[in-house]
Each structure stands twice: as C-alpha cells, then as structure tokens.
C-alpha cells in the first residue's frame, strides 16, 4: 500500500513540476566544448530578453559529440536551436527528416557562424617530445590524442587540418592520405567527443599531444593553471566555422520561432561577440576581434570550401561509411 502512495505522490510531483514551468523555454542542443560559452551567453540573453520583451525565457542545454547530438535531434530530441561543430551535422537535419530548409546556412550572416576557431596542439609542460608542427605528430613514439571523427565534429576538423597541412607540403592527395594514416597510427584511444578527449589528456594523463579546438586548449590552461600544459600553434591549420541554426519544425510546433531567432541573432551582437571572445572563440565582428587580437595567434588558415570543396563533399569523401577515414583506420 505504501508503495502505491509513493508512486502516486511522485507522479503528482512530476506533473505539478511540469505544469509550473510554463514560461517560454528554449532547448539549445550544442556540441561538446561550448558548455562554458553558452552558460555565460544564456544568462546574458535571459537578461536582454527580459528587458526587451518582459518575458522570462528558460534555456536548457544539451552537450555531446556534434555528430551524436545531430543524430539525437533527428531521432526526436526537441531542439529549438542547434549550435553544432560543423555545417555537415546541421545539413543532416535537412537530409534526414527535413527539420529545417536546405538553405539554412544563408539565413544568418557569415554562413551562420557567429564565431570561428581553429585547431591547435596541447602538450605537457616543457613540451618534452619537442612538438613544433604537424610533422612531429607522425614520429614514432609520439602518442596523439584526438576524438573519433565519426561522432565528434572537432575530430573531423582535426583530421582535415592534418590533411590540409600534408597536402600543402607535399602537393598530392596520396601523400596527404599517407600522412594522416601515419598520424592515426599514433592515436591510442578515440573518445566520442572533444571534451572527453581533453579530459583523457589532461586528467587521465594519456598521450604526449592532444589535437584540439583552440578554445578547448585555452580552457584547459585556464582550468588547470598555465603551469601544467602549453599550447603549440602549428604553421598551418584550418578555419573552423561552427554554425548555428533554428530548427524550424520544432519551433513551429512549440511556438518559439521568434525567441529562437532572437537568441541566435544575439550571438552577433556586441555583447554576444564579447562573450565568445572571453570564452576563447574568435569573434566575427572586427571591432570585437581587435580587442582579443593579442589572445589569438596569427597563422595560415585554410578553409573547408577552398580546400575540400565544402562540407557535403568532405563528409562524403572522408567520413561516410567506407570513406577515407574507414580505409585508414581499418588498416
């Protein structure tokens, strides 16, 4: 009998909790390293939205490997907005389920990417293995940490940055493939997301060098103190553009289209750009970017469009089932 009352009580509790939370609610489904960025940005937007409209908005977050998160949204995770690591993952929302229009990337300025980043190396204090550039990562005895490109967006940027470097150096696709294959021979473990890979490197002490997002590397320095790790900037890397989009099908149903759009547009505002810079993402706005010029090193950056013919093509060639990555990793 007691159990029955307990069930009824807990059920009632659950129902009342659901009923009281009836103000506007947004779910932002994001990739792994943006936790700290959106924590700060959300509280700024809540204040801005309250001042502008008088409405309270609650923003819920979900983080994980970018590809995995896209998969969840396709399977029904009710995301009002997605802020993922690369456009191929948002393209997947169009191809599987038509959750947003095909031209979603044209709806916001600068390819719908309010901030950019790049790929750098994180090494242990004093750089004991003497890692200076990509060539040092394929040397025997150097253990490299990078996540799984199948589930992690950051890992795909890592892979393409290595590929871009090798092709610029050697000039041929074959040499680039050989270089990337040699690199993955030095990888002892493939985590599913960028953050998991960072904690493998910094907390569990595995590996000599972690290939990672610039913002992840800066955050690790900040969290663990600059004394334990160092950032190594390679001679060439890739311009990573993590895009954002409103998920039309979800906001239409929930009636949150207006606030979801305003949420993403606020990322482009001066305050939004400043928060991005503070969290080690490179701001798009030149004025705000100038403020953080001393933080971010200048380096040669190749783009996905120029180098790989866009994400759709890169995704198909390298990361689809049976693609180049599968061929390399199966060996």
């Amino acid at each position, binding site marked *: 009998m007691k159990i029955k009352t307990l*069930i009824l009580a*807990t059920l009632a509790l659950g129902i009342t909790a659901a009923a009281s939370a009836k103000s506007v609610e947004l*779910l932002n489904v994001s990739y792994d390293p943006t936790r700290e960025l959106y924590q700060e940005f959300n509280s700024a937007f809540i204040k801005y939205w309250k001042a502008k409209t008088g409405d309270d908005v609650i923003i*819920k977050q979900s983080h994980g490997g970018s590809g995995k998160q896209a998969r969840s949204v396709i*399977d029904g995770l009710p995301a009002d907005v997605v802020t993922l690591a690369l456009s191929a993952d948002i393209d997947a929302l169009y191809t599987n389920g038509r959750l947003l229009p095909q031209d979603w990337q044209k709806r916001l300025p600068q390819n719908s990417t309010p901030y950019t980043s790049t790929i750098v190396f994180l090494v242990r204090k004093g750089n004991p293995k003497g890692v200076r550039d990509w060539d040092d990562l394929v040397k025997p005895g150097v253990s490299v940490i990078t996540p799984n490109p199948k589930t992690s967006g950051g890992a795909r940027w890592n892979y393409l940055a290595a590929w871009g470097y090798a092709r610029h150096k050697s000039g041929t696709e074959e040499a680039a493939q050989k270089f990337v294959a040699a690199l993955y021979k030095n990888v002892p473990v493939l985590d599913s997301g960028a953050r998991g890979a960072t904690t493998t490197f910094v907390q569990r002490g595995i590996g000599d060098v972690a290939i990672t997002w610039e913002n992840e590397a800066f955050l690790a320095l900040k969290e663990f103190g600059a004394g334990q790790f160092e950032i190594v900037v390679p001679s060439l890397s890739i311009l990573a553009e993590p895009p954002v989009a409103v998920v039309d099908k979800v906001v239409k149903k929930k009636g949150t289209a207006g606030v979801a759009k305003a949420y993403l547009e606020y990322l482009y505002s001066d305050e939004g750009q400043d928060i991005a810079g503070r969290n080690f993402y490179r701001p798009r706005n030149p004025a705000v970017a100038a403020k953080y010029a001393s933080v971010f090193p200048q380096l040669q950056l190749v783009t996905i469009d120029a180098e790989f013919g866009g994400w759709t093509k890169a995704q198909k060639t390298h990361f689809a089932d049976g693609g180049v990555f599968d061929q390399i990793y199966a060996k």
Partner: protein
Amino acid sequence: MAALAATSSLAVKPSPHGAGPRVIRNPWWVRAFFMTVALLFVLCFLVLPLVAVFTEALRKGMSAYFHSFTDPDVLSALRLTLLTAAIAVPANLVFGVAAAWCIAKFDFYGKSLLTTLIDLPFAVSPVISGLIYVLVFGLQGWFGPYLGAGDHPWFGAWFNAQDIRIIFAVPGIVLATIFVTFPFVARELIPLMQAQGNDEEYAALTLGASGWQTFWRVTVPNIKWGLFYGVILCNARAMGEFGAVSVVSGHIRGETNTLPLHVEILYNEYNFVAAFAVSSLLALLALLTLLLKSLVEWRAKKGGA
C-alpha cells in the same frame, strides 16, 4: 545464493582438534599467501576506489562538498533518479513475482523460452537496450511518426496536440531502466520457488483456500526474504544505470539527466569536487543497499526461510 552459502559453510566447518581426517590443512604460508592476495585484491579494486571517491569529493572541504548538492541541476537529477526507481522497481516487482510464479509452479509449453527471455537484458549490452527504444520510438523509428513532433497524415496532428514524448523524456528513461532491471526479481525468486516445490500450496488448496488466499498466505510468506533481496538489487541497478539511459536521455540539463549521467557532465566540465560529491551520493546509496542486503540475509537465516 543461499544454497551456495550453505555448502561453503559446511566445507570450512572447523574440527575440534584442528586436523580432522576429511579437512585438508595447508601449510600456514600457503594460507597466508592466498589470504594476502585476496585482501590486496579487495583493497585495490573495492576499497581504494571508494576511498578515492570520498577524498576527491572532500578535497575542498565540507562546505564545498555540501554546496555541490545545492545546484538545481543536481537536485533535478536526484529527483529524476528517485522517480525512475520508484516506477521501475514496483513494475519489476509485480512482473518478477508473476513470472517466477508461472515458471516455478507450473509446467507449460515454451517455459524455457520464457526463462531465456527474462535473462535477455543481462545478456544484451545496455547501450543496445537503449538503442532499441530509439529505433522504436525515435522520430525516424517505427512509432516515431505518431508521436511528439511527428507528422503522420492521420494521427500526427492529434498526437502533436497531446505532445507525447517517449525518448529524450522521462518515459523513455523509465522504460530503459525497467528493461535493464527486468531479470533481478524473477531471477532471485525462480530457484527459491523451485526449491520449495508445490506441497504447501497443494495443502492450502486441499484445505479449501482460494487461489489468492494461497498466494498471499502461503507463497508470499515463503518467498518474502528472497523478494526483498531481489528488490534491493533491482533498486541498486535502477539508480545506477548509465548506458541504456544515456542513449535515450538526450542529456537535457535539469530535465532528462539522471545522477549517473550528471556525474559524467560535471566531470567533463572540470568540476571534479561536484562530480565526486554526486558519485559519493551514489556510493552511499550502494553502501546502504549492501547494508540492507546483509540485514535481509541475516533475517532470512534467522527466520529459517
């Protein structure tokens, strides 16, 4: 379990003079060696991790430790974990007793198939258990088009209005938990009921008791300690399940994160004190479970069940 304990206690029964004819006496150093190995193993694999959890959790002092539990996301995870267990455990209690009753007391066609099916959740990886629900209830799955944001031409609109969510919401988490904790109660009861046989029930029926009376007054008192034991194990797993729940949760903070999932999130956010503080809460739940379990075993032995 109980049978195993009984035979092993027979084997080590000490003889009055230290060297009975049937008992093998090993040299002292052999015993010392194996005892040390066993103790070291227990120390390394059980005690050390437990100590590590608590020292890490208390690294920044008591106030930081207790402060971890004031975070609304942690409280929401705790609430969800308790709610999930409060639904999953009674559901499996009812099912477990019914299944064990069927299998132990009756003979029917397909009995071994049913026994195998009950064991299935033990054999399948929890990740697969979670994926099953995504495949069935996901937007691209079998029933997905009828649920949530689905747009089925006939039923879509109605279900849209009801806003029924299975996966990435509480029902999915409860379903996945029920699935992985399915066998605990039944597995505990089947051998016990089989060992007890049907004699007492037959006696009750012959004396004019109805089916329900027989069940409540004869069967249940006979199995109650085994039942408690199964429920305790089932509850421990329901609160601790990670894999299956991780797949169906969607990881929405303050909404669909259970305690084990929230531990991973906190750890990944470099919030180690809070991660270990929440882990210590789960560890305490586990210790409490063990305590209850020992108590139940002790009472069962005393009661002669």
